[in-house]
């Protein structure tokens, strides 16, 4: 249950961006959550209202977008989307792969109004 700490980081980051860009209202925030980010969407959604209280995010809607695990194969050079927990190239089944997506926990975009 580290989602409370994640929610605090998230709210802190957004408040920082809002001050820099003079944002006064945040209607929605879209987050990217990777399959291997270690972030549980439901736990985060539970923590956010407590952390957002008294901030610009109090009434904001949070939208979650999943980022599938994506690997690039060093043998066949192709990219693929293996299913956790078997992390191999789905084309040639090589395990000589590098993870290129799926660890993200990123603020993608926000719908906002300014002063």
């Amino acid at each position, binding site marked *: 249950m580290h989602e409370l700490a994640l929610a605090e980081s998230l709210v802190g980051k957004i408040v920082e961006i809002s001050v*820099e860009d003079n944002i006064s209202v945040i209607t929605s925030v879209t987050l990217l959550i990777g399959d*291997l*980010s*270690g972030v549980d969407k439901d736990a985060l959604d539970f923590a956010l209202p407590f952390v957002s209280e008294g901030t610009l995010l109090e009434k904001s809607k949070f939208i979650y977008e999943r980022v599938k695990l994506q690997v690039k194969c060093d043998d066949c050079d192709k990219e693929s989307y293996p299913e956790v927990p078997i*992390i*191999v190239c789905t084309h040639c089944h090589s395990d000589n*792969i590098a993870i290129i997506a799926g660890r993200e926990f990123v603020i993608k*975009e926000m719908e*906002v109004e*300014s002063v």
Partner: protein
Amino acid sequence: MCEDCGCTEGNEKKYFHSHTHADGTTHSHDDASLPHKHPHEHTHSDGTTHTHARTEHDGVSRRVQIQQNVLAKNDEVAMRNRSYLAERGIVAVNLISSPGSGKTMLLEKTLEQLDGKIKCAVIVGDQQTDNDAKRLKGKGANVIQIETQSACHLNATQVGEALPKVIEKDTELLFIENVGNLVCPAAFDLGENFKIALLSVTEGEDKPVKYPVLFSDSQIVLLTKTDLVPHLDWNMQRCRKYLRDIKPGVFIFELSAQTGDGIGEWIKYLSGLVD
């Protein structure tokens, strides 16, 4: 002063455009063609100044692209820790496992073996008590305990604050014993060179596939308490297969801190890290 709303030109700070921040991220502010606009000039945090001929300043909904890592702050501090350690030629490992997998006992044995050969330092994280630090003291290494209170993991700031207290001029190897937890510590970079996951044979060989976030990010896995294998329904080959499924190329050690089995290989490996 604006005749429509009474605002003072130049005071408003709204702008609709695309710009790049000091950290390299770019995002756009949509231009909405609304009736109320003023020309203005503004300066960004990176020092660049530019002028917009006409900009909006009433409540207009727009979409801004952010594309920023939520844990950017932690990652930034972790990178500072990493530089601090690298400048001093120190190798740091982040030990992560469930509570009771034998992290502290393994460290006790490890410090005893390395005493007088490799100068070590230890940062121990627990929610409460300094029991672990007490166990690890007096074995030639500087030890500091971080009590995380309610938190279930160490973060980069806590480690950064502890570094100057445990690192000495001749320190070569830093062990960070994370809070016992297979989930949360995996998300927080502390500035280590790499993560080492511990899995005791009493926990079940399918832990790697049940907790893929940690095991897919650990280059080294220590299978601990192997002296108990004869008493358990533990399948070493199956566990090794699960580990390789989730992390191809993972380096696996089997050891028992109790009997000393496999400790020699582990010590040899650690010695190789600081050579």
